[in-house]
């Protein structure tokens, strides 16, 4: 064996394993921060707009923008990024329910330590929201940025065909409309061709943001899921919601099939309604067939319900990760990104609501809502919304509820009361450890 050969083999081995020592993040420029936004088309446009404006004004303090990588959910991606130490500096699509976990793991910057934060937050949000985003250690790790209240979208033509001027408001109305619709769309073999509504049947935890959780908040007037480290949902409202949903499947008003793998069933008029957020407007306007009309209304509530109808608002907030080499710059960028002008741009680009107090009455936004009456409904609803409770393990909580949901609501293997009781039991175990 010649020396040259030995050199060759060493070279091969060395090149292969040299990667071990090479890290991409050694020499970070403190004046060039990485910002990730959500990855839906409209939000990417908004983020590009804001980042371009910023970079034009601040050529020496640049922000590099990238949408959060594609995955089953952005929550999964962020967790993986934290684990793999590949987090961005600024992230604007942080689900409120995850912040407590990350704060406790020590990967987020406490924002209240930054200059001018307290004035900023009290100007932007009311005390209820500030309380909602304050961590158990008293610090605030997130900026309430945008919300998407969950409401019921409905096909106007179908409702008119059923003799209704508006979408059903309470459970009985909902059932009678659903029954009428089903009876019209059942074939001679007993198969239903069209459904009154649709909820995602997969047990993925966050699917419950679009059925159980907003319905629970609506029924209970905004009661918490978790309180004092125990399950607070073991009550008649949760059971009522499970009972309501179960009847929808049992009586064939909803299908157990995963319709989301097909084409858009709402725009194809295969379903008459569903629970969704304002992002549906942009999507529907883009893909709707000619002559298709739709409206939004509040979540259905139990028959004897009084008071405002609450819902879940799916809050997505802005955080700064501790890996950020220049939090002060990040904070200035965030302030810029969330000022009134840019909040208006957010509305225009994405149809998502900035989490500002009195949004529907603020004169700065009046023109926008005049041009977008559907969005005004969401803005009005935004007075009666809840985010998540400031406790850790919420992913697991929703996963537990999802498992029971599938057994009880979809397949009827347990009564609603049993399912809620078992879920509460499992959740309580979670907070014991």
């Amino acid at each position: 064996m010649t020396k040259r050969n030995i050199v060759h083999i060493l070279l091969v081995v060395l090149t292969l394993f040299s990667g071990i020592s090479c890290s991409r993040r050694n020499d970070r420029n403190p004046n060039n921060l990485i910002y990730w936004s959500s990855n839906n088309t409209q939000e990417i446009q908004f983020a590009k707009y804001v980042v371009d404006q910023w970079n034009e004004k601040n050529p020496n303090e640049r922000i590099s923008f990238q949408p959060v990588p594609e995955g089953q959910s952005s929550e999964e991606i962020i967790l993986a990024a934290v684990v793999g130490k590949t987090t961005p500096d600024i992230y604007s699509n942080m689900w409120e329910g995850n912040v407590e976990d990350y704060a406790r793991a020590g990967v987020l910057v406490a924002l209240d330590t930054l200059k001018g934060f307290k004035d900023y937050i009290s100007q932007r949000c009311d005390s209820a929201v500030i309380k909602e985003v304050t961590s158990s250690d008293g610090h605030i790790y997130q900026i309430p940025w945008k919300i998407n209240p969950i409401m019921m979208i409905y096909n106007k033509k179908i409702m008119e065909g059923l003799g209704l001027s508006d979408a059903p408001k309470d459970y009985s109305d909902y059932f009678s409309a659903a029954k009428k619709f089903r009876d019209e769309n059942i074939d001679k073999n007993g198969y239903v061709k069209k459904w009154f509504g649709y909820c995602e049947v997969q047990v993925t935890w966050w699917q419950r943001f679009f059925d159980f959780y907003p319905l629970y908040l609506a029924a209970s007037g905004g009661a918490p899921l978790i309180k004092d480290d125990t399950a607070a949902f073991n009550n008649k409202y949760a059971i009522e919601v499970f009972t309501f949903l179960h009847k929808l499947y049992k009586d064939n008003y909803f299908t157990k099939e995963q319709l989301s793998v097909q084409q858009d069933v709402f725009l194809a008029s295969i379903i008459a309604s569903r629970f969704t957020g304002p992002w549906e407007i942009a999507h529907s306007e883009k893909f709707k067939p000619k002559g298709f009309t739709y409206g939004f209304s509040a979540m259905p509530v139990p028959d004897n319900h009084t008071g405002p109808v609450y819902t879940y608002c799916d809050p997505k907030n802005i955080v700064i990760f501790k890996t950020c080499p220049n939090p002060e710059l990040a904070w200035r960028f965030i302030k810029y990104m969330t000022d009134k002008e840019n909040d208006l741009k957010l509305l225009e680009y994405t149809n998502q609501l900035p989490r500002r107090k009195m949004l529907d009455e603020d004169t700065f936004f009046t023109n926008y809502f005049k041009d977008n009456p559907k969005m005004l409904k969401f803005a009005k609803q935004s007075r009666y919304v809840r985010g998540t409770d400031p406790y850790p393990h919420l992913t697991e909580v929703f996963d537990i509820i999802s498992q029971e949901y599938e057994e009880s609501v979809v397949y009827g293997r347990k009564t609603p009361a049993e399912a809620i009781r078992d879920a509460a039991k499992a959740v309580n175990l979670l907070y014991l450890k």
Partner: protein
Amino acid sequence: MTKKKLVPYLLVSPYLIYFLVFIAFPVIFSIVLTFNSWNIISPMKYNGLNNYIRLFHDQFFLQSLVNTLIFLVIHIPLQIIVAMLLALALNQKVKFLGFFRAAFFLPVIVSGVVVTIIWQQLYGFDTGLFNRILTTIGLGRVGWLIDPAWAMPSIAIMATWKNVGLYVILFLVGLQTVPNHYYEAADLEGANKFQKFFKITLPMINPTIFMVVILSTIGGFSLFIEPYIMTGGGPLNSTLSAVLYIYKQGFFFYNMGYSATLGLFFALLILSVIMIQKKFIEKE
């Protein structure tokens, strides 16, 4: 001279490095992990035998094993029967043999992701091709992916469709090794087709059958992408495969210690099943 002695070691050194880094260390580390709880973000915490205790009380893991078993029980016989039928057909004097062989083999080379995306549509309850055919010929619909009793069989059928081409080829090779004079002798004794098949063909290609069993078993144990895309493990966890469950515990909830415990236990289970099958083959 010493240089010469070194050469073989230099040649195998890449493998040795690979073995130490990617096999030996992970196996040892995996065993260490099973005694700890760790989410990677916070420091590792020793928790004794808790992972094992949890494993033996974990109904989801038990269910994932049962699901895997259901998959194998349907998949393996179906695979063998269909592959055998097609191989017997192709073993005749067939025109366009190349075309048919190529057609049967096509799904084997295509990514499981593609196959799953297509079959998800075929299995649709309201609009899928299968239920349309069933209703056209006057039968009732089947809840392929929405009925907990049907979901795993549906995935097994799809997996059979995807892999059967490979086994057709393997059986064809096996069939061609059966000497022709065996059949001629049987003809003289007046044996019919079925007798010939069961008395001559089947015993002769027994080794191939066992190879198919082993390969399908290993394939079945690593079932992941099909339920991941198609059902996410549902309905009612009826398609939760063991690998999908390990993946969920590890990369969904970041329970690394528990996930490693599941992996270790499952790996030992696979090894013992394969060993038993091997023993069985050697005896035959």
